């Protein structure tokens, strides 16, 4: 009997996406340890990675990193397929959808801060939409919307500034060596 070996060819792009996703997962886990005054209000540090991937490697790579981040983050935090996981997934999908459109904005006027704020609003919009339809179909959610939106604005802007600074120093090159 011969052992069959399944070979999955892995190219440099796959490795790069895996590395960047690991970075995003690490940030997700780190921020899960941060205390938060309102459940659901988080800085969304992993979005820094997603945004940098978007700006450097395009939307497909960003979607991969974001998807892997949600999936592996759910696995590691033990919330896979729990409501929190689906909220996270809805936020990530909505945010990627917003980014798919927003990245066509003229870049001489709209920098990383714009993209980050728009993505943050997309994120919270997707989460609230799913929560409103599925988890909490009540008026209580409407009362919380301004809090979430304000958090999205503030953290989106901060993350955007971080992305702009990191892009200026091209810090991602240190994590992921560029092919020369």
């Amino acid at each position: 009997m011969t052992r069959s070996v399944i070979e999955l060819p892995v190219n440099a792009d796959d490795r790069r996406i895996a590395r960047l996703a690991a970075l995003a997962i690490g940030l997700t886990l780190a921020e899960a340890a941060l205390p938060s005054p309102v459940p659901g209000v988080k800085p969304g540090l992993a979005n820094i990675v997603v945004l940098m991937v978007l700006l450097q490697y395009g939307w497909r790579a960003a979607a991969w990193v974001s998807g892997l981040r949600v999936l592996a983050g759910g696995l590691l935090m033990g919330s896979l397929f729990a409501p929190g996981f689906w909220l996270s997934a809805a936020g990530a999908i909505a945010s990627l959808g917003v980014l798919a459109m927003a990245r066509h904005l003229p870049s001489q006027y709209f920098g990383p801060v714009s993209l980050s704020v728009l993505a943050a609003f997309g994120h919270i919009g997707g989460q609230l939409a799913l929560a409103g339809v599925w988890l909490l179909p009540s008026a209580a959610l409407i009362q919380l919307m301004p809090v979430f939106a304000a958090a999205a604005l503030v953290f989106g802007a901060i993350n955007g500034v971080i992305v702009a600074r990191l892009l200026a120093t091209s810090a991602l090159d240190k994590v992921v060596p560029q092919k020369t």
Partner: protein
Amino acid sequence: MLRTGDVGVLLAGTGLVVSLAMFAWSGGQGDTAVIRSAGQIVETASLTHAQRFSINGPLGATQIEIEPGRARIARDPSPRQLCVKQGWLSQSGQAALCLPNQVSVEIRGRTTVYDTLGY
């Protein structure tokens, strides 16, 4: 670091947050006062400007005072003065009832948070 459009996006975001807050947190604010005498609506007044009403009941005249955003029973001939002591009403659903004189004021708003509020 901040480009022209970024400032625009930030401003638009701030506007969105503010309008969301105004939309979500002003629902309990009343905008009309419904005045009843012996169970019948005698007056429906908007809470936009100051005005006074004098409603006659079995004991005499009940004075109702309306200011922008709020309303109260200013004077009433009822012995216990409970509805006068309730003071200003501004939230949707709040009501003041002067029983022996059978006059009541109820605040209504865009959304009814409570069926009724009494103290």
